[in-house]
């Protein structure tokens, strides 16, 4: 019979860390971890305007379209496997 109503079962696997971070939180953490927020006096206060600025900085460094938005290429970059050395500063 056709699979009507047979929706896939999704379970929680023990020991697996499932990130509950929002895209914004993920971006903030990335910017912080890889040195983009280390600019003197540039603390992010959670406002979109600030994030735009640092996102553009990151997008420029990584050769992504400089939109200042959490667009698809930027979200992909946030999830991509990479080196742990900061991109900005030491």
């Amino acid at each position, binding site marked *: 019979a056709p699979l009507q109503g047979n929706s896939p079962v999704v379970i929680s*696997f023990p*020991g*697996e860390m499932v990130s509950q971070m929002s895209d914004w939180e993920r971006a903030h953490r990335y910017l912080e971890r890889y040195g983009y927020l280390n600019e003197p006096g540039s603390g992010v206060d959670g406002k979109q305007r600030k994030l735009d600025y640092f996102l553009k900085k990151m997008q420029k460094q*990584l*050769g992504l379209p400089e939109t200042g938005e959490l667009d698809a290429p930027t979200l992909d970059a946030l999830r991509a*496997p*990479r*080196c742990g*050395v900061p991109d900005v500063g*030491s």
Partner: protein
Amino acid sequence: FQTFQGDLKWDHTDLTYRVVNYSPDLDTSITDDAFARAFKVWSNVTPLTFTKRQSGEVDILIQFGTGEHGDGYPFDGKDGLLAHAFPPGKDTYSGDAHFDDDEFWTLGTGIVVKSYGGNSDGATCHFPFVFEGQAYSTCTTDGRTDGVPWCATTASFDQDKRYGFCPSELLFTYGGNGGGEKCVFPFVFLGKSYDACTTEGRQDGYRWCATTANFDQDKKYGFCPNRDTAVIGGNSQGEPCVFPFTFLGQRYSACTSEGRQDGRLWCATTSNYDVDKKWGLCPDKGYSLFLVAAHEFGHSLGLEHSSVREALMYPMYTYEADFHLHPDDVAGIQFLYGKGSAPEPTVPSWPTQSPDVPEEPTTEADGSTTTEDYGSAATGSTPVDHPTDACSAGWYNAVAEIKTELYLFKDGQYWRKPSAGAARIQGPLRIRDTWPALPDLIDAAFQDPLTKKLFFFSGRRFWTYRGTRALGPRSIEKLGIGGDVQKVTGALRRKNGKVLLFSGEQFWRLDVKAERVDRGYPRHTDSLFAGVPLDAQNIFLYKGKYYFCRDPFCWRMTPQYQVDKVGYLKYDVLQCP
């Protein structure tokens, strides 16, 4: 390129390094070779030399670790952050390179299993191999009574009788103080008896065993090498899959994505997940230790991240088979150290098409040196690395009608041709983005119209996908296709849940529901499909007609088995301009 603030660099050119510990993912000789080749990337274009030391003070210490591993910069588990390194200097960690051992370290294209003993002189396992008429895609203990896994090092043990033993704690350990001796089971640790490797007593998750019967007394131990079926992460890191296993009452004989939203393949590490809840992710392509090491050693020498996507020092990882140091990297390292006396390397012109992707990694007979160059340079996360127009691709690994669209597969990419006459072909897209479990090379594919289940074939293996749920790889032998068949070249969907599978000059009729070919097959292609080329590269159903394509032409056949047109795949089928 960028250098660290103050242009940090070594004040001498004869640099030394030491490997502090090893990952259980790779044989130590393969790891050593990867590091040596990674250093050579830089010594080729500078006056720098790199010498490996077994002990004592060195410039660059190389270490594997997980989580917080001592330097205050913790790793983050699987994926994400892969490794890091410190710039040159006099500080404790200066020049050191650390690799996250929660990653699955390979040479970038999947597990590399070096064999030991036997009669193959350390050659790598050949998967699949045939033993007593059965095909094996992993090491096996079949045919032995001592439980030691083995593999053939050629395609057929029955024919060549070449074999070796696979990494196993029953054969050897690494590191520790046990001198590489095998585990002794059972062994006693803190008064408790152990019949298998354990992570008890450790915080870093490495599996270990005693190499005498009593650790409490003798204090002799070693780390357990990962078996080829060892899982990654989950709650059973390093333990092998157990097949078949039960999950939600169903039996599974292969890794599956059932139960997951992300499509990743997993297995249970006991025979019953429902009871034991022990699991891990199945081995994937892993990350190329050579590539990542070459990047990290760039930091060890004084280079910061480059914003040139094709450069080795770009921060993101992408595997490419054909490695060349990018001119940006050469300029950076020569800014710090000069050119050296070696001949100037030939700077390649960058390909406009994706390079051919090798199906499996290849190693020399001694298993220690890869014959391919394992490639460089991250390219970010665009749809494909080197986008190619479908019409200029020239040929395809596989062509298949899925739903009502024609799918064209080639070297890790695919295109979709909508059913509407001259609608633009979409793509290329990455196969791995849509179907993460699949390899880059797809030989044939089809969709079962009843269940919507997709079948993909690559070499002697096949995968199924229903939505995002994957199952496989499994051997085509499971379908009843003989061990001498190297690949399925095409598939024609028929009525009543049947599909014809082609290889060479013969075909089988597959009962899709039973996942088994019918009796009376294979039959000769010419017996039913007279007038089509018997060496067709792509065979598929499209808009109710059969197509047999041999570059650059296609023979179109009606359901009444009459060839009604011979034309170009490119112009007549794909309607390229």
